């Protein structure tokens, strides 16, 4: 008791921040590794399907997006390496697909279409891809749930 006379013991209220840097760097490394640039930002309401396969992205598939009614069913295309660009006519779509197939005959195509797109629009895109001798296409979809 004599030892502590005249002195008061204070508890230090400090938050230990030594490991914060490690955690933050881990998070940064995670984001850097998983970072992927979205080539097409067309807002679509994808149809729901039960069967869904993972699209192989090693070969950088080309993208064709058909927007919703709000955007006038606008078609945008991307080579898989650059940001998507809008196209005006079906002939332009045939030219785009033919060029991509000429560059790589095994090139996959992804169709990202809104579920409310009239079938005629999709039919025109499918016809253009068939004319361009495309071998494989993927129809982008969301997972169908049990309730649906």
């Amino acid at each position: 008791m004599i030892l502590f006379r005249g002195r008061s013991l204070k508890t230090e209220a400090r938050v230990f921040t030594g490991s914060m840097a490690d955690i933050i760097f881990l998070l940064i490394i995670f984001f850097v590794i998983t970072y992927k640039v979205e080539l097409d930002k067309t807002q679509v309401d994808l149809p729901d399907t039960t069967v869904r396969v993972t699209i192989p992205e090693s070969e950088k598939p080309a993208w064709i997006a058909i927007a919703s009614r709000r955007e006038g069913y606008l078609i945008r295309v991307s080579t898989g390496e650059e940001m998507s660009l809008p196209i005006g006519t079906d002939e332009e779509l045939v030219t785009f697909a033919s060029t991509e197939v000429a560059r790589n005959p095994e090139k996959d195509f992804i169709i990202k279409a809104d579920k409310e797109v009239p079938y005629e629009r999709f039919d025109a895109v499918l016809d253009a891809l068939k004319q361009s001798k495309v071998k494989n296409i993927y129809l982008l979809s969301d997972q169908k749930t049990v309730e649906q």
Partner: protein
Amino acid sequence: MKFKKKPLDSEIFTGSMADITFLLIIFFMVTMAFSSNRGIDFALPEDTTTAAEISQEESIDVLVLPGPVDGPPVIQVDGRQMPINELLPYVAEKLKQNPSKPVILRTDPGAVYGNMLAVFDELRQAPDKIGMKIDNISIPTQREIENIWTMLGIGQ
């Protein structure tokens, strides 16, 4: 005169590191794309004339009619309207007679893309639902259908 040597501080200032790293994290979080990368695969015929060679009698003809976008699709199979849950049992019966029988999936131009994909999804579930795989599902385009009609000399 005697000078007192002042020891030099050899320390890297890390006070702003937290700010920089937080900024980087926020940048990556905001710009990260959680895009869907799954869907239904569909192989197109090597030669477009192959699809035209399949005659309607040798195949199962599925016609998708205009229907609700989120509801069950309205279909006509071999000219008969039927609910979507009866499609695969019907196909199974036909495949028992001829396992290589192709299915032609046609869609009314007045229907929407979601209607067609719902029926295509149903057909692709054949291995799970009826234990049989449909080897050939053909989706002819309107131009191909018109070509067939012209070849057969039938006006649509």
